[in-house]
């Protein structure tokens, strides 16, 4: 008998219940023993073959997209590193004139921005896209075209954004862009707009990648890979992606608000009209501090996997480590305001953030002790990855300790905005992300290169980088404590800073020498391949080291432990011989098995899309949309927006194609359905994740509204009358009902039966009702005398309404798209993926509209 949903989940998680009704005795059929028919591998190779030459632009397979992504992120690491060297030359001696003041401002802003937005987050996402399908033994991640879109938007937009430096238009307000410095009064040029709009596509790209990773980790794991057996990197990427979904909406909203203030004079951050510059700091740091953990956690996941291999033993405290990842994810959202201790927040509030900053070191410490314990109980093989891992632990712990120091309010007041902070953050980021990344480059190089990287050169790379790091950043603790502020373009001689700064500059070039040596190693030894790779050089035990082709593994193994390759010596051969799941293409198309989220029980077969030019087209036009807005080419921006939309719709057109086959044999006679709809489908999970992103944007908008009311209640005016509010709520409720009816009409039809025009017309009516509601809401507020330029209240209310209007516009487009598909006869009963998506989006839009309308009209209700 089934209990409550919570009880069912608890039972499934506690191992008392199957999630899907799948009979676990069927697992005994694997590995199979009958010989496989000839030609299956050839068919897989044909189906998963990729275009060559210019056709590579249309590739969506994770082997290519992941590699392109990693290479591009590393390119940005090098570019931002060159900017750092320029700054260090400028600061090598007092009163230098190597860089002009303006150029220096652009250098430090671009260094921070590129490192955080164009290198660190994309790099970990890239490694995830590259490794996760193989680690989970999926054929690919569930939305390959979304991965391709995320990459190309990032690649094109990132290069254009960086190019602003060469024309003197790069942002110059620091990587966290505080107003009022970045308001029109103090930054009238378009440099700031480059930052605000330029990172728009990076945010979109990051969220697209996060959705892909959440659904990929939860729904495409190999059968038997329960949550307990997930590789640590998969756990880390799951936490990482959830954190992106929660944290990024805050900076998305912040950048939109600041851009609206600059473009339309809406005073979100102008205290003379009821705004507040500290609102920006709250919005930025609610993203900005979790961002540090967003970068660190995937690297920690990589560390946990590499530590086990180099110590040649299982990771000590696997469950503790997972718990530490999750706890860090939670607690990282309670520390944002420790960046604001010097702003004069109430004393008790600073105390809460200080306490949370201390508390977050607990889970971080658990991970470090697990790694140390693993190294202690194992037999360490002193390879290059081992050096980078141990170096990383040392450097990260040093950075963590200074982090605890600046978590204490009185100390932070002294060290705030000095070079002490620069030293702290570089220790944390280099130890917590860059060193693990280099370790990973050496460790996983065998997956993508014909020859391994040189161990001899690698050790030189490590020692140059490790010593260079300390030479550069250790003296900065002293320069900071001696009072040298960060971001200064130069300093006076004979203040005790000359020698320390010179040493830091020498250290920076030592790090650069290490990176240069790594590039030489790459040039000598790295040869990209998808088939004849160097293999498992360090003897890892997880699934990415199974023999693979473009289709990932020949057959998808049944997972019985955390390190299957260590525990089952025959698994490589069995997988390659097709003795496990899906040893061939069951439908003649690209496909993978979708499994249940907790116990990874096989649920259905997903048909996957192949190469397409539309993701790259959509990405190019997305980037061009944002960049055109920046340079105020509004007509071209409109064209780009429409073109991007058409590309997206065209790419989606093929993803919901009718399949005649109902079920497929996934091996040993086990039949599963093909392409289902509803809560069990992977698309349902993806849309839910997107709705969480949108809800978070709305939530942060409501927070902004409340925050400004708390600061400047005197500028608040009375909302429109209750009768109007009731009318708007009724319209939105009607829209909700119409969307529901749309699905009901389709569900009443038998399989394959065309339902007529009813379903899409009901969806269109629903969208029109929502549009009428937002129009009434908007005019109601303007009729009550509120203007967006008048006050903080006007700015936040109309920003929320503008967000709702955008959501409604998307709903209208979706309803029309559904109508077009219906006209082509592609909408048949009793269920349809496209209709399911459109209806649920309409329902979400109606609920969002209700939340916004009721909240701002009823509170404070003066």
């Amino acid at each position: 008998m089934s209990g409550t949903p919570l009880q069912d989940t608890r039972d499934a998680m506690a191992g008392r219940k199957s999630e899907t009704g799948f009979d676990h005795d069927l697992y005994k059929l694997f590995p199979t023993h009958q010989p496989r028919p000839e030609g299956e591998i050839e068919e897989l190779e044909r189906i998963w073959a990729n275009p060559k030459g210019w056709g590579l632009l249309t590739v969506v397979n994770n082997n290519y997209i992941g590699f392109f992504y990693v290479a591009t992120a590393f390119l940005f690491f090098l570019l931002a590193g060159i900017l750092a060297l320029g700054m260090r030359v400028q600061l090598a001696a007092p009163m230098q004139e190597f860089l002009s003041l303006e150029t220096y401002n652009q250098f430090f802003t671009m260094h921070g921005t590129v490192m955080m937005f164009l290198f660190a987050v994309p790099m970990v996402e890239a490694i995830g896209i590259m490794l996760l399908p193989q680690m989970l033994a999926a054929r690919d991640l569930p939305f390959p075209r979304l991965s391709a879109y995320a990459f190309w938007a990032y690649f094109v937009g990132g290069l254009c954004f960086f190019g602003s430096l060469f024309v003197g238009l790069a942002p110059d307000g620091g990587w966290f862009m505080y107003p009022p410095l970045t308001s029109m009064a103090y930054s009238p040029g378009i440099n700031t707009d480059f930052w605000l709009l330029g990172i728009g596509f990076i945010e979109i790209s990051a969220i697209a990648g996060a959705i892909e990773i959440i659904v990929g980790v939860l729904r495409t794991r190999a059968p038997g890979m329960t949550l307990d057996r997930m590789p640590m990197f998969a756990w880390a990427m799951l936490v990482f992606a959830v954190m992106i979904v929660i944290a990024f909406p805050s900076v998305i909203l912040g950048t939109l608000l600041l851009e609206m203030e600059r473009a339309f004079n809406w005073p979100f951050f102008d205290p003379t009209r009821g705004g507040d510059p500290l609102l920006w700091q709250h919005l930025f740091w609610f993203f900005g501090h979790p961002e540090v953990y967003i970068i660190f956690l995937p690297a920690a996941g990589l560390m946990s996997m590499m530590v086990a291999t180099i110590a040649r033993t299982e990771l000590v405290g696997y469950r503790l480590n997972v718990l530490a990842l999750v706890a860090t994810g939670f607690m990282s959202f309670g520390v944002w305001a420790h960046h604001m201790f010097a702003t004069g927040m109430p004393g008790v509030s600073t105390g809460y953030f200080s306490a949370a900053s201390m508390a977050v070191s607990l889970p971080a410490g658990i991970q470090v002790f697990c790694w140390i314990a693993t190294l202690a109980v194992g037999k360490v093989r002193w390879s290059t990855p081992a050096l980078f891992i141990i170096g990383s632990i040392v450097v990260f712990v040093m950075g963590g300790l200074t982090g605890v120091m600046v978590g204490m309010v009185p100390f932070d007041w002294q060290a705030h905005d000095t070079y002490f902070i620069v030293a702290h953050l570089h220790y944390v980021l280099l130890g917590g992300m860059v060193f693990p990344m280099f370790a990973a480059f050496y460790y996983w190089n065998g997956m993508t290169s014909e020859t391994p990287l040189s161990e001899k050169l690698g050790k030189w790379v490590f020692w140059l980088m490790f010593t260079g790091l300390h030479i550069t950043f250790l003296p900065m603790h002293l320069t900071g404590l001696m009072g040298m502020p960060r971001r200064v373009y130069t300093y006076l001689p004979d203040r005790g800073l000359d020698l320390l700064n010179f040493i830091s500059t020498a250290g920076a070039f030592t790090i650069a020498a290490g990176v240069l040596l790594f590039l030489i190693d790459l040039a000598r030894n790295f040869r990209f391949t998808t088939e004849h790779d160097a293999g498992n050089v360090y003897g890892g035990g997880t699934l990415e080291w199974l023999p693979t082709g473009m289709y990932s593994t020949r057959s998808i193994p049944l997972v019985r432990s955390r390190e299957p390759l260590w525990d089952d010596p025959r698994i490589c051969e069995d997988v390659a011989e097709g003795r496990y799941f899906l040893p061939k293409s069951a439908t003649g198309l690209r496909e993978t098995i979708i499994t249940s989220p907790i116990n990874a029980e096989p649920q259905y077969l997903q048909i996957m899309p192949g190469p397409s030019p539309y993701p790259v087209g959509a990405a190019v036009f997305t980037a061009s949309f944002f960049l055109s807005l920046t340079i105020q080419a509004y007509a071209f921006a409109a064209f780009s927006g429409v073109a991007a939309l058409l590309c997206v719709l065209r790419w989606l057109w093929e993803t919901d194609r009718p399949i005649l086959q109902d079920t497929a044999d996934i091996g040993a006679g086990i039949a599963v359905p093909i392409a289902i709809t509803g809560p069990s489908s992977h698309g349902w999970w993806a849309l839910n994740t997107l709705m969480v992103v949108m809800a978070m944007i709305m939530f942060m908008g409501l927070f902004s509204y409340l925050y400004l009311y708390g600061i400047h209640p005197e500028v608040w005016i009375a909302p429109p009358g209750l009768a109007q509010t009731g009318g708007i709520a009724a319209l939105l409720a009607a829209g909700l009902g119409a969307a529901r009816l749309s699905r009901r009409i389709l569900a009443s039809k038998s399989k394959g039966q065309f339902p007529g025009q009813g379903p899409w017309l009901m969806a269109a009516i629903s969208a029109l009702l929502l549009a009428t509601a937002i129009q009434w809401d908007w005019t109601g507020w303007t009729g009550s005398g509120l203007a967006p330029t008048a006050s903080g209240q006007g700015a936040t209310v109309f920003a929320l309404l503008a967000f709702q209007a955008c959501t409604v516009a998307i709903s209208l487009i979706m309803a029309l798209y559904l109508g077009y598909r219906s006209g082509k006869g592609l909408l048949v009963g009793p269920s349809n993926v496209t209709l399911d998506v459109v209806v649920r989006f309409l329902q979400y839009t109606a609920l969002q509209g209700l939340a916004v309308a009721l909240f701002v009209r009823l509170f404070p209700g003066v």
Partner: protein
Amino acid sequence: MTRNYRNRTDWLTPALALSVWAAHFFLLWAGSSIFPGQPAARWIAAVLTVMAGGTLYWLWRRSQNRSSTSTSGLGLAIAALGVSYGFVPAILA
């Protein structure tokens, strides 16, 4: 290597426990921002801490005998430490 293909760890309890910590933290902050420097903020903190402690205790009772291998204890401990630690500034203020 086991032949059991079911998840055997109770991941839900620690997730709920950390959610309790998050709710406690955000409500503490909201209270201290709405009533800065006032005794009300301290009383709100005290009430929230008692409620959070009670919820964690309830989760601990529920987690007993729920799974053969469990991290719920450590998850609850981290959350309880975070909650207690978060209350300290309200006492000292």
